[in-house]
């Protein structure tokens, strides 16, 4: 019996191992398995759906501390996971007459744990007798090779995965309950306020950045801007000092240079050679996909996983930036040469020495992300197609020659003042030719001037500028910081980044801290800073890695984590009252800021609030006097994005203004937007956009 991670993977593996390439799919109610013949072996290929078993508390009571747990079928913890029950029953039934079990899940911590738990609790077999298939892509040749060269189970890897779940469960459950119960005791409300051992530090990074931005006071400086003429052609020149610190210095430079004739003193050329970027690992792929395609890291991971299951790319959860020697690069390129879009580039590369550039980072289990060269078995969605294109082009580019560019600079002088004009010329595109749309640089030629030429400085101005605050995090930059701080794993980081937002701690994708985020951060920072500290988490991460390397064992790490947690919870209990009060105050501020939109214009003494219809789930603005039957004033709201009240009224209709943040888009409107005389053009444009989108969607559906 081969235990796989997903139905798609099960089918791929069954097809690859079946002698006739057509395994029999046996349907059993809502689930199925595959039967195939491989030489003298009769194989049964079953699938999980990710984790079939989860941790559940064994002691009674929704309180803390709760330290005891056990692995149980997922449907016992998550009542919605009804599809898991028949799968476990099927595996259990089929396991009775099996003489060898093979774990064929993804070769990483989670995959190894899924296989181990399935063997232990569904197959009811001793995992130490089972074998392991190790593969980095779902191509036929690699799967065959993995089946012909089976390994023992990697128990340190499994233990490391197991303890990661146990520690995350201990900290997540207990800390979240502590916060939630503190609020309940202080105000009698039941509002889940969650945190975790990585989520706490992630929130802390966002909050500290927000503090810097909120406390930012810009300083002035002046930039000298010069418009000059040479042979009747206009030139823009820059002053050699980019920042002039006082207005008087700026004025004096302007006075000295205005209407003077400067001389071209020197034309400098600096040639720069740039090697290709290394092959993608998950983190660099997520970063580049965010930069060029606007995909959030979690979306990139989902799309990459789908491409992997489609045999189009290698396993994406890798840290490696290297393509090992045993990888058949020639076969991959030959495969890509059969695809119309990539044929020319693949053929050109095949003529060369096939020596890819390698990065520094490694991963013992998987190579860098690369295309398999196989045509995807299912048609790719437009988003998958774009990500696939990025991966293929990056793969091509690692075989490319260096990019050569010339930085040009003309130095123009007048007395002791120096001015520059710059240009950039690409001498040889090299690898950038393969990277195509993902390589961005602006070539700019130097004006047609020679050393000794005279340049007339016709307009000289000192423009006031101001220093800028640090940028807010975006999903990609927060993920990078977590990676740099060694918090979480390559598989969990994107989920943690998403959770900071989905819990309401930040507003939209801009990672602007919400009032709720402030409330939690401030309270923890004041009373329980250890729950925000990256130190504790980093130490735990290290110990979990040590288990993987056999340097320590699960029991001692778990015992230490429990002792540490108990001391945190003891301290929390002592401060529970103050923490509860602080959180309640913060929540009140949060609700006031996010839900209240000022006095009702109809009844005068009610307050306008954002409410959600219990029937339709749609949100709208209603008056607080509605329940008393006094006022029925309502206003419709946009259904997508985060709505924040603004401290201003509409210049056209005098109603309250709001800010809507949806994805990367922000706009301001008034609550009376559907009736407001000043917003009819906007409404028309919105209708047009919607109709265009719906036509596009219909087109996609029919194709």
């Amino acid at each position: 019996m081969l235990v796989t991670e997903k139905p798609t993977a099960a089918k791929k593996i069954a097809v690859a191992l079946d002698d006739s390439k057509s395994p029999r799919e046996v349907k059993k109610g809502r689930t199925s398995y595959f039967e195939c013949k491989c030489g003298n072996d009769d194989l049964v290929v079953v699938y999980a759906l990710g984790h079939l078993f989860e941790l559940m508390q064994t002691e009674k009571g929704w309180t803390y501390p709760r330290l005891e747990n056990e692995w149980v079928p997922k449907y016992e913890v998550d009542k919605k996971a009804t599809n898991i029950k028949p799968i476990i029953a099927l595996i259990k039934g089929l396991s009775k007459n099996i003489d060898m079990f093979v774990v064929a899940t993804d070769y990483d911590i989670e995959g190894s744990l899924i296989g181990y738990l399935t063997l232990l609790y569904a197959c009811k077999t001793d995992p130490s007798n089972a074998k392991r298939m190790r593969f980095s892509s779902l191509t036929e040749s690699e799967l065959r090779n993995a089946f012909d060269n089976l390994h023992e189970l990697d128990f340190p890897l499994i233990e490391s995965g197991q303890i990661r779940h146990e520690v995350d469960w201990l900290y997540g459950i207990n800390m979240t309950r502590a916060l939630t119960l503190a609020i309940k005791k202080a105000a009698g409300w039941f509002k889940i306020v969650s945190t975790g051992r990585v989520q706490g530090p992630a929130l802390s990074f966002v909050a500290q950045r927000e503090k810097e931005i909120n406390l930012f006071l810009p300083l002035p400086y002046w930039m000298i801007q010069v418009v000059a003429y040479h042979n009747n052609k206009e030139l823009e020149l820059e002053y050699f000092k980019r920042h002039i610190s006082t207005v008087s210095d700026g004025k004096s430079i302007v006075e000295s240079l205005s209407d003077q004739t400067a001389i071209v003193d020197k034309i400098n050329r600096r040639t720069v050679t740039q090697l290709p970027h290394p092959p993608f690992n998950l983190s660099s792929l997520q970063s580049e996909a965010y930069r060029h395609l606007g995909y959030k890291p979690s979306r990139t991971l989902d799309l990459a996983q789908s491409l992997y299951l489609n045999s189009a790319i290698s396993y994406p959860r890798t840290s490696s930036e290297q393509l090992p020697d045993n990888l058949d690069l020639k076969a991959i390129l030959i495969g890509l040469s059969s695809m119309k879009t990539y044929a020319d580039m693949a053929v050109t590369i095949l003529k060369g020495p096939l020596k890819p550039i390698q990065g520094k980072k490694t991963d013992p289990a998987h190579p860098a992300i690369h295309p398999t060269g196989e045509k995807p078995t299912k048609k790719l969605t437009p988003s998958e197609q774009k990500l696939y294109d990025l991966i293929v082009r990056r793969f091509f580019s690692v075989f490319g020659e260096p990019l050569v560019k010339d930085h040009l600079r003309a130095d123009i002088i007048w007395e002791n003042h120096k001015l520059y004009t710059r240009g950039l010329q690409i001498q040889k595109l090299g690898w950038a030719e393969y990277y195509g749309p993902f390589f961005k640089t602006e070539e700019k030629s130097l004006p047609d001037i020679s050393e000794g030429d005279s340049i007339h400085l016709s307009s000289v101005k000192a423009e006031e500028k101001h220093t800028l605050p640090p940028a807010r995090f975006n999903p990609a930059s927060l993920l990078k910081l977590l990676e740099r701080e060694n918090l979480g794993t390559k598989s969990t980081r994107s989920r943690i980044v998403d959770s900071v937002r989905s819990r309401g701690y930040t507003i939209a994708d801009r990672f602007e801290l919400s009032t709720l985020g402030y409330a939690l951060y401030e309270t923890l920072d004041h009373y329980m800073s250890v729950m925000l500290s990256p130190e504790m988490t980093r130490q735990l991460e290290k110990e979990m890695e040590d288990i993987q390397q056999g340097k320590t064992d699960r029991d001692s790490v778990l015992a230490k984590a429990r002792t540490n947690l108990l001391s945190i919870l003891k301290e929390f209990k002592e401060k529970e009252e103050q923490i509860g009060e602080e959180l309640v105050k913060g929540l009140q501020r949060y609700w006031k800021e996010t839900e209240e939109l000022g006095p009702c214009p109809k009844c005068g003494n009610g307050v306008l609030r954002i409410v959600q219809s219990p029937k339709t789930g749609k949100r709208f603005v209603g008056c607080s006097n509605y329940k008393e039957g006094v006022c029925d004033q309502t206003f419709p709201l946009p259904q997508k994005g985060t709505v924040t009240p603004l401290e201003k009224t509409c210049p056209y209709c005098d109603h309250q203004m709001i800010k809507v943040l949806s994805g990367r888009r922000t706009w301001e409107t008034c609550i009376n937007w559907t009736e407001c005389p000043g917003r009819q053009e906007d409404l028309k444009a919105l209708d047009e956009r919607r109709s265009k989108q719906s036509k596009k969607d219909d087109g996609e559906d029919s194709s």
Partner: protein
Amino acid sequence: MSICPICGRDKQDKFCSYHQTAYDNVKEMYGQWKTAAGLSWEEYLHKISDIESTGRWIREVIEFIMQQDGL
């Protein structure tokens, strides 16, 4: 009265810790603005609150100062 007159958080000195830091920043940075741009205190406050990149707490403190001083 022990709450910040700007945001309602607990007061440290004149304001909560955030607005107090913002207030100290506003006072401290005036010297640099005065040298660089030759502005009076009042001009400085108006200028800072007009700049888009000025932080939220700085802006709130300035608004408070201007209201208090009737500027």
